[in-house]
């Protein structure tokens, strides 16, 4: 089944309303998402003596109101945009808010503010009256901006915990994580650059025995951008972001060329790099050791992953119920381990539902890419969606001990302002691409 057919089956109608009036599919799904989001907040708002504390539901209601406003604005200005993307995002945001109130109540208001900013960013990136070609035109600017950003962080970055990796930039109370922005800038650059060199990259001009390689000169800027950002991230010990950028680069190379040679070559490169990193960097060794055997030190190095797995185990099929589990025993549960909290309190049922929402969101994004009107828009939509999917898989794989744990956020669900805003920009652009004339 192609993604388009999967997506079509899920939504019941095609993305483009084509002047047929109201975006009913989006409205219906949005009502469903709003219901789930508000319902998830009910246990936290319930008073012990019965009744509800309505002020506790206000953030969720404000979120839902903002979502409906965007729905109306889409119908007015972007009637052809995909109708599944907004409801999926709102559902994840609503659940994320409820979980945030549950596991990190002190940070919940801040998280709500970021979610509102995220929705605003989504609206802005969808509605701004610029041509998408602007992104293509300034591709080298994005590349340089990204490298500068990481460089500045390396020099002036701050750490969330004393002695920890310095991943944050900012002044006063406002900080942001440059690596999240870098992900966006990398997709912009690669979509523009690769589209530009598409003909050359697809043609085989260099043969090495049975292998057909990409013309090396055209690889150089790409390799430079990738190498510099990866090296900087490695220096920062931000392994999750490094892995994410690497996979995005490989994925976009494949998207433009369809060559599995690139993927295999990239994987070979990855194995070499991983081996080197494992030998040179202590934190990589630790992470791999914990991944291979968290049980040997369950109260020390393996504590977080073991506690996370125990939380998932506790959930069973229907979960302990929101507010009834003990997810707060997991360090960083509100960011990296939000999925474990979700699985503990809503069970396999809730986890499966959220995974299906992610699947729907990604398929909708890829479907926009398939249908986009120009190669650049195809590359951009696919790259942005790919970034979100890979990020989701990296953190979920880490939490579930499928791969070594590297700290990245779960899009729209985890705590973390920069991640919400950059993910919202990405999906806003995908919404916009979906509405371009065919």
């Amino acid at each position, binding site marked *: 089944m192609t993604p388009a057919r999967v997506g079509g089956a899920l939504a019941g109608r095609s993305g483009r309303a084509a002047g047929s009036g109201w975006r009913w599919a989006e409205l219906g799904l949005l009502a469903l998402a709003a219901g789930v989001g508000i319902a998830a907040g009910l246990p936290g708002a319930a008073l012990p003596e019965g009744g509800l504390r309505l002020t506790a539901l206000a953030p969720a209601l404000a979120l839902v109101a903002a979502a409906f406003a965007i729905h109306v604005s889409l119908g007015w200005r972007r009637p052809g945009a995909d109708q599944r993307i907004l409801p999926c995002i709102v559902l994840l945001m609503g659940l994320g808010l409820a979980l945030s109130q549950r596991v990190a109540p002190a940070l919940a208001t801040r998280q709500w503010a970021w979610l509102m900013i995220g929705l605003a960013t989504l609206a802005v990136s969808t509605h701004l009256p610029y041509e998408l070609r602007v992104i293509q035109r300034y591709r080298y600017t994005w590349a340089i901006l990204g490298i500068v950003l990481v460089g500045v962080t390396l020099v002036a970055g701050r750490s969330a915990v004393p002695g920890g990796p310095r991943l944050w930039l900012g002044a006063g109370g406002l900080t942001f994580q440059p690596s999240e922005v870098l992900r966006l800038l990398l997709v912009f650059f690669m979509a523009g650059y690769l589209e530009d060199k598409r003909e050359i990259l697809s043609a085989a001009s260099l043969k090495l025995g049975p292998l057909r390689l990409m013309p090396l000169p055209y690889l150089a800027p790409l390799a430079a951008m990738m190498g510099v950002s990866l090296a900087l991230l490695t220096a920062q010990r931000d392994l999750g972001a490094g892995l994410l950028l690497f996979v995005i680069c490989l994925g976009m190379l494949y998207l433009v060329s369809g060559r599995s040679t690139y993927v295999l070559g990239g994987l070979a490169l990855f194995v070499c790099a991983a081996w080197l990193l494992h030998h040179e960097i202590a934190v990589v060794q630790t992470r791999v050791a914990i991944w291979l055997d968290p049980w040997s030190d369950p*109260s020390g190095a393996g504590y977080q992953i073991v506690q996370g797995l125990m939380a998932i185990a506790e959930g069973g099929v229907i979960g302990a119920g929101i507010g009834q589990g003990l997810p707060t025993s997991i360090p960083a549960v509100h960011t990296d381990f939000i999925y474990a909290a979700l699985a503990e309190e809503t069970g396999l049922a809730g986890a499966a539902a959220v995974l299906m929402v992610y699947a729907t969101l990604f398929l909708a994004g890829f479907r926009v890419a398939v249908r986009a009107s120009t190669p650049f828009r195809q590359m951009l939509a696919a790259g942005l969606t790919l970034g979100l999917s890979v990020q989701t898989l990296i953190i979920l794989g880490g939490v579930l001990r499928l791969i070594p744990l590297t700290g990245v956020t779960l899009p729209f669900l985890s705590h973390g302002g920069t991640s919400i805003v950059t993910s919202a920009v990405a999906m806003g652009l995908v919404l916009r691409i979906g509405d371009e004339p065919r």
Partner: protein
Amino acid sequence: MTGASPSIAGHVVRVAAVALAGLAVVAAATVYWGFVAAPSLAARPDNPRRIAFEQRIRRGRILDRRGAVLAASGGPEAAADPASPPARQYPVPAAAPVVGFQTWRYGAGGDPRVTYGVGGAEAAYDDALRGDLGMSWRQLIASRVLHRPLAGHDVVLTLDAGLQAQAAELLGAREGAVVVVDVGSGAVRALVSQPTFDPASLDRGAPPPDDPRRPLFNRATQGRYTPGSVWKVVTLAAALEDGLTTLDATVADGDASDTFGGFRVACDNNPDGVTTFDMAHAFGWSCNLTFARLGTALGSARYRAHAERFGLGEAPPFPLPVASGSLSEHAELPPPELASAAFGQGEIVTTPLHLALIAAAVAGDGGLPVPYLLADVPGIRWGRLADERGTWRQPIGAATAAAVRRAMVVAATDGHARPARDAAGIEIGGKTGTAQLGGSQRPHAWFVGFAPADAPRVAVAVLVVNGGEGSAVAAPIGGRVLARAVAADDAASGDRE
């Protein structure tokens, strides 16, 4: 503007398929950890959920047969602070060997992390006490989904708190055990093991697991001791059952002796100058020679068969851990060992609980009852909850039992068990034992008996480890316990009427 690229669209489809496959793997891994591996993860002692969830339960109380509280917990409000888990109250410390313990710090010696542990009746009836039992599957699902506060059921034991406390007090600081069972039913009225522990102190990590006094070891059910002359009850019953002798048979063993495979045995215990007496008095005066002769006459194979019919070598069904006794390591007992076993010496060992059941058998219709502890769980329909009840073994008929009973009354009237009758103040039947241990060790003092003599209702076994003479040390304890048990039984019947 160039047109869309069909080749890119094709690649997007493949990338989307890979992303979807990735999510499928994530879903499978979630099912693995959340379902397949979940039981083993949930059972890990370092899982903080175990204690957190246990503390939400309002655990049921443990009551004695007349409603006296043996164990009770504070409510869930007391559990709000996980740093100081609610201490379970144990108002009758003497009942610790039966009631057991419930602690948040089990295995405190090795692992500093707080975990949940239970022992004794707290473990045996954990399901009922936690409230899991007796719920239909619908109630179980509803209580889980709706997060109803979990309340456990009260559990009523057959135990008599007053009797238990008195028996423990009579033992005092001495190491030993007292078991009182109901003759007809096998209901356990008292089960004392000393030294014991304070169940409420386990949360503070006491006693240490390597305490040389072994306070957690239940001597009444798990201790294997040489029974000495109290075992003559079994030898007499076997000989009577097989028609080898009668109670009126004349025995002239008073100043005689004989050798069994080179092992010389004399009567030893008869009053000076009394050399000829009937079988009942040979039993009452605990004449070793007579019983060595009876054992030898039965022969190794028959003797073993009788002992096994009395349950030696097997543990009776019981909610607490029980050890089984044994006759000998030899399949065919050599003559000296057979002669010794017949009067309870040599290789033979068994538990105080077992000897109480033997006393109940001869006090009743000859059948050893299945001992049980659980009287009732109010509000719960009977079912798999109940302890097993009934007859465990039927080694002898009612007539033989009546004859042995008569011999035990003689022993308590004219024989060495007289101090027990004097202590009781009522007519009883009994048998003392002084189990020789060899070397310089003091012998174990034993008493088994029943009361009242004419229509026995309660049976007892008393052991004082390295206590000395059974007649001087164990018999008075047994007598007082029997009197108290009969009085308590009268009071309980009065309650019911």
